[in-house]
Structure formats: structure tokens, C-alpha cells
């Protein structure tokens, strides 16, 4: 009796351990197959590789900043489109600022909405008012349809990368795409799917 029950217990225990092992292996396989995530390019407005529209915007601090056009050996500029009514924009703002700092990007926030609300948002997030412009015309020029949207502009005034961003990974993909000379995550995935290209 005891022998039989011991055999049954060991068989059950080992079967269970094997099941856990199989699950752990599967998780490992999943990790290896997770596709890299990137900012989604929306395919409207000025395309990556084209010159960025040239505009002059007024910042919340009162000064003016020129967007587009060549800048003498300036850093890459990151335009980040936000709105006080977009919750993801607010939660992503600290990440964007840390990211711009670590990548040495010239960050410029572009808002579209009530100026007073944006001023409050900037104060809550401790954003310098010189780096925040309420300029709906920029969004229109770049044809930004969804937020939060980011555009990376090279020193030559060319759109280096752009897309809808929801995480730090998406932001990183913009810089990576620029370094690899790719236009979007879609293009990267398409290339990976057909290695002959």
C-alpha cells in the first residue's frame, strides 16, 4: 500500500515538475521571438527624409523658436506633440525628458489647446517654458493626427524619423531608425521578414 502510494506521489511530482519546465522553456521561446517595438509612422504629411516644414513658433515664455531649416552643427531636435487632454502624453513626459537628456536631443514640446491649461501642465511637470510652444499650426504642418507624436529633425532640417510613441522603447526606435537609415518600424519589420532585401 505504502509503496504504491509513494510511486504515485513521485510520478505526480515529477510530471508536475516537467510541466513547469516545459512552461518555462515556452516563456523563453516567446522572449526570443518578441519583435522589436517601434514608433508607428502614420504615412501622412511630410515624410521621413523630406525637409521639415519651416515655421517660427512662440514659446510659453514669450520667446520665439524656429523649427525646420538647417542649424549650424546643432544637435538632433525632438518635437514632442502633446495636449493637456491626452493622459498618455502626461505620463510619458518624464520619460521623454529623461530620454532627450540621455540622448542629448534638443527637446521642444508642441501643444495644441488652451494656453492656460498648458502653462499649468508645464508647471506641474516642471518643464521650462522656453521649451514649450502652444502652436497648433505645427501640428497641422506635420499633419499630426494622433497623440503623443514625436518627430526627430536632423541638424540639416530633414525629418530623420517620426511616429506615434507610447513608451521609451518607441522613442529609442526613432533614434535607432535614424542611425540605421530606416524610415519606420514598418520598414524594419518588412526587411526582417524578407532577408533577401
Amino acid at each position, binding site marked *: 500500500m505504502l509503496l504504491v502510494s509513494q510511486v504515485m506521489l513521485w510520478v505526480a511530482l515529477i510530471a508536475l515538475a516537467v510541466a513547469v519546465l516545459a512552461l518555462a522553456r515556452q516563456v*523563453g521561446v516567446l522572449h526570443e521571438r518578441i519583435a522589436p517595438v517601434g514608433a508607428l509612422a502614420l504615412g501622412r504629411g511630410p515624410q521621413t527624409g523630406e525637409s521639415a516644414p519651416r515655421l517660427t513658433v512662440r514659446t510659453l515664455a514669450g520667446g520665439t523658436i524656429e523649427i525646420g531649416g538647417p542649424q549650424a552643427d546643432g544637435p538632433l531636435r525632438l518635437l514632442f506633440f502633446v495636449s493637456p487632454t491626452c493622459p498618455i502624453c502626461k505620463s510619458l513626459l518624464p520619460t521623454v525628458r529623461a530620454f532627450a537628456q540621455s540622448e542629448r536631443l534638443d527637446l521642444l514640446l508642441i501643444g495644441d489647446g488652451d494656453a492656460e491649461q498648458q502653462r499649468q501642465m508645464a508647471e506641474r511637470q516642471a518643464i521650462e517654458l522656453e521649451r514649450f510652444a502652444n502652436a497648433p499650426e505645427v501640428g497641422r504642418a506635420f499633419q499630426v493626427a494622433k497623440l503623443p507624436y514625436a518627430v526627430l529633425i536632423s541638424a540639416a532640417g530633414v525629418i530623420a524619423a517620426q511616429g506615434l510613441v507610447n513608451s521609451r522603447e518607441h522613442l529609442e526606435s526613432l533614434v535607432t531608425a535614424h542611425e540605421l537609415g530606416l524610415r519606420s518600424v514598418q520598414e524594419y519589420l518588412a526587411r526582417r521578414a524578407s532577408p533577401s532585401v
Partner: protein
Amino acid sequence: MMADPAIALAGRLLGTLVFATAIAGKIKHRHELAGVVANYRLVPAGLAAPVAWMTVGLECLVALSLATGVRLAAGAGLAIALLVGFALAMGINLARGRREIDCGCFQSGLRQRLSAALVVRNLLLAALLTPLLAAAAGRVTTLQWVDGLGAGLAAYTLYQVLGELISLRHFSAELRRRFA
């Protein structure tokens, strides 16, 4: 103190399977073996290949001794020495900050970086083999056979699960960082 025959059997089976898997993994990846040893930077580069193959030879002796029970105390002692030696090699490289090198465990399909968890795993395994140092030959009942083999097999499977979880931890940390 004499170890219970069931405990000795479990330890022998666990040790045999662990070392047999390690040998199989090393032979399967024989072309990378010298490189892995060289990466540890503990022996001169010219000695990496001889040290690698000597390790495999010693592991074979351990597996044979544990499987057959011949010169069991010596085999168990060598096994413990090897495990503690590997733990030491990993510990030294962790202290140097070289955690990105492959551990050379060849246990799962995933590349395994060095981690404190691997050091602990090795020491735990060495501790589980210590009862074999004082194991006595004697009559073994059927129940002890069943318990010994069952426990040994279960422990080996759990050891594999542990290795898998240790390598997964790194992947999860990377994912967390990516989506932070």
C-alpha cells in the same frame, strides 16, 4: 553520520544526471568550449583548451562514479570540488564586473549570463551531494529504491527548472527596461 540509503540514491541519481547533462552540453558545443573558458580570464589563453577538456574528463569520472557507486566517496568529493570551483570562477568574474560572459552551463537554448543565482545554485547542488561522502553500502529496501529514484529524478527536473528561471530573469529584466 550514515546517510539513509534513499538519500544517497537520490543524491547519486541527481549528481549523475546533472553531470551527464553538463558533459553532453559541452560536447555538443565543443567548438565554443575553449572560448568560454578563456572568457573567464582565470588561466592563460594557451591553457584554455587543455583546461576545458580536463574539466570534461573530470566530469566523466564523477558521472561514472556516481552512476555505478564505485569509489563513491571520492567521486562525490570530486563533484563537490568541481561545483565549488565553478562557483568560485563565476564569483571572481562577478566581482570583476564581467557578468556579460556566458556561464558555459550549456543547459538551455538560451545564452546564460553570470549571476549570483548561478553561484548559489552550484553551492546548493554541492550541499545536496555532501551526504554521499559518508554513504555506506547496505541492504536497500524496495521502498527506499522508489523514494531515492523518485526524489533524485524530481530534484533533477527542479534543477533544470531553476536553470531555466535564472536565464529567464535576465530576459524579463530587459523587457521591463524596454517598456519602462
